[in-house]
């Protein structure tokens, strides 16, 4: 449900470090809460994103929510599959459902994010 090698934000984004870059998506918890995702709006490659500021929008049949950048930096890649198949956010949130790849301004910002054991407590899926 919540891979151990990821870092998590309080707004339910996950971050995977890949070399000097990070891949970003939303967690299983967020995907389940949203229910079926029908539309994802993402910035273009080259856009700047700022820690805990909105970088995009995810829309489900239930709600429209902002996506918050878990790190500051520059978007270098955007998942093209989400345009036609937003449902992969529900079926494979940590794999095919990734959203953007960011070149961080400062990788140390990762320390402001939660490790998995802290995240599962935050969402009430484990005892503190």
């Amino acid at each position, binding site marked *: 449900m919540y891979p151990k090698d990821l870092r998590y934000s309080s707004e339910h984004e996950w971050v995977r470090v890949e070399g000097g870059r990070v891949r970003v998506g939303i967690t299983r918890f967020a995907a389940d*809460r949203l229910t*079926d995702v*029908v*539309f994802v709006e993402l910035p273009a490659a080259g856009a700047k994103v700022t820690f805990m500021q909105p970088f995009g929008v995810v*829309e489900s*049949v*239930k*709600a*429209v*929510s902002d996506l918050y950048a878990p790190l500051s930096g520059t978007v270098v890649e955007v998942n093209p599959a989400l345009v036609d198949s*937003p*449902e992969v956010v529900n079926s494979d949130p940590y794999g095919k459902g990734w959203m953007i790849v960011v070149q961080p301004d400062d990788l140390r910002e990762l320390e402001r994010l939660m490790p998995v054991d802290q995240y599962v407590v935050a969402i009430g899926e484990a005892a503190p």
Partner: protein
Amino acid sequence: MTPFDNAQGRPRDFPVIFDFSVPGRVGSSYPNPDVPDTPLEQLIPASQLRKEPAALPEVSELDVVRHYTRLSHRNFSIDEGFYPLGSCTMKYNPKIHEDAARLAGFARLHPYAPAEGAQGALRLICELEELLAEISGMDRVTFQPAAGAHGELTGLLMIRAYFETRGERRTKVIVPDSAHGTNPATAAMVGYQVVTVKSDARGNMDVRALREAMDGSVAAIMLTNPNTLGLFEEPILDVEEIVHRAGGQLYLDGANFNAVLGVTRPGDQGFDVMHMNLHKTFTTPHGGGGPGAGAVGVKAHLAPFLPVPVIERDGERFRLDDQRPQSIGKIRAFYGNFGNLVRAYAYIRSMGADGLRQVAETAVLNANYLLARLRSRFDLPYDRLCKHEFVLSGARQKRQHGVATRDMAKRILDYGFHAPTIYFPLIVEEAIMIEPTETESKRTLDEFADAMLAIAREAQDDPEVVKTAPHSTPVKRLDEVRAARQPDLRWKPR
């Protein structure tokens, strides 16, 4: 009745008007003109003319009447049954309003009639302004906005103009996390950065968080009071002080004005601007997307920025004032949806001051009665005396029986009621938001409560019947996911 099975697989009993089309059939035929006919090409430049005729349905008047009358029978309205959508105030619209709005002097008045020829209509608008100013505690009111969201836009444009004239650059608008989506959308449209402030455990705006977020860069806070949890914002006077001390403006989303009519006045709570959804609180028609009426009231310091024209009273004469150099300009043709102003006026005049207070008191009583009847079977995340509406959670049913709020909302249709608002406000998991309004009898409230309790039992004993609902409506469960992912928005010929 054969032509209804078409290539798009639309159900037999849901033809579209095009399915009735017969080449050459017309709705009405006219005698030949007794004056010389001028060909179209001589009247309209070639660039503006179609190359091919428009593919309009070719049908008779009776085809049209029957088709749309039949469709209207599929509709559900408050004239047919209980309609407890929360945050929407789906209250009954008294039929006497229709009499008033159809008076020829109002209904047939030409919008370009000069002020001298429209004194009665101008007087009505002017008196409605005076009435709403008194009810809300604001100084001036405009009626141009066509809905609440449009009123928000008008209000924030005035706030922006106000700071521009003062030479202040403010860039942010604060919105609580319980707000209706139109609030942040409006602030973003006007060019502000939206700052979300969380609610506290009692469902109020978190004053500590507000204090931290508030500074000289904040133009306004948009507050809903009672808020979308149906709860009165207890710290309203602290909020007022914090915002005004930092020079910000206090905007009230008045969608929930019904709960406090005649009891408290937003102007007295310190609000600088507010919108009133006349199509909610003041019983003008609602639904089908309009036409609505979102009156906006302002305090005197914002009056110079009101949209033009403003109607001014000179004794017993009324005139249109366009000469307002600081105005944000026009935001709607003419004077807004005038027919709805007639209805709102008729409502206020027939209720009177005491009657309006009774509206609020009965709306609150009805909501608390329903809440008391339902609370044992559903979760209640914010357990307080509610105002005109309350928000339950279907989390228990979801967790224990796999029955989601959406399923229960579909099931309530089988019991003959409109569903409540669901999944709003966003801060309540599996939210079920119920607003009964003041016009419902105890008997109706009991019938609805019985149905909700029966559904809670079904969720436990027979979850499948809830998960596959509705069973008795003309169409069964719609595939909302496919409709959103692959929308089929327009009819195409076979």
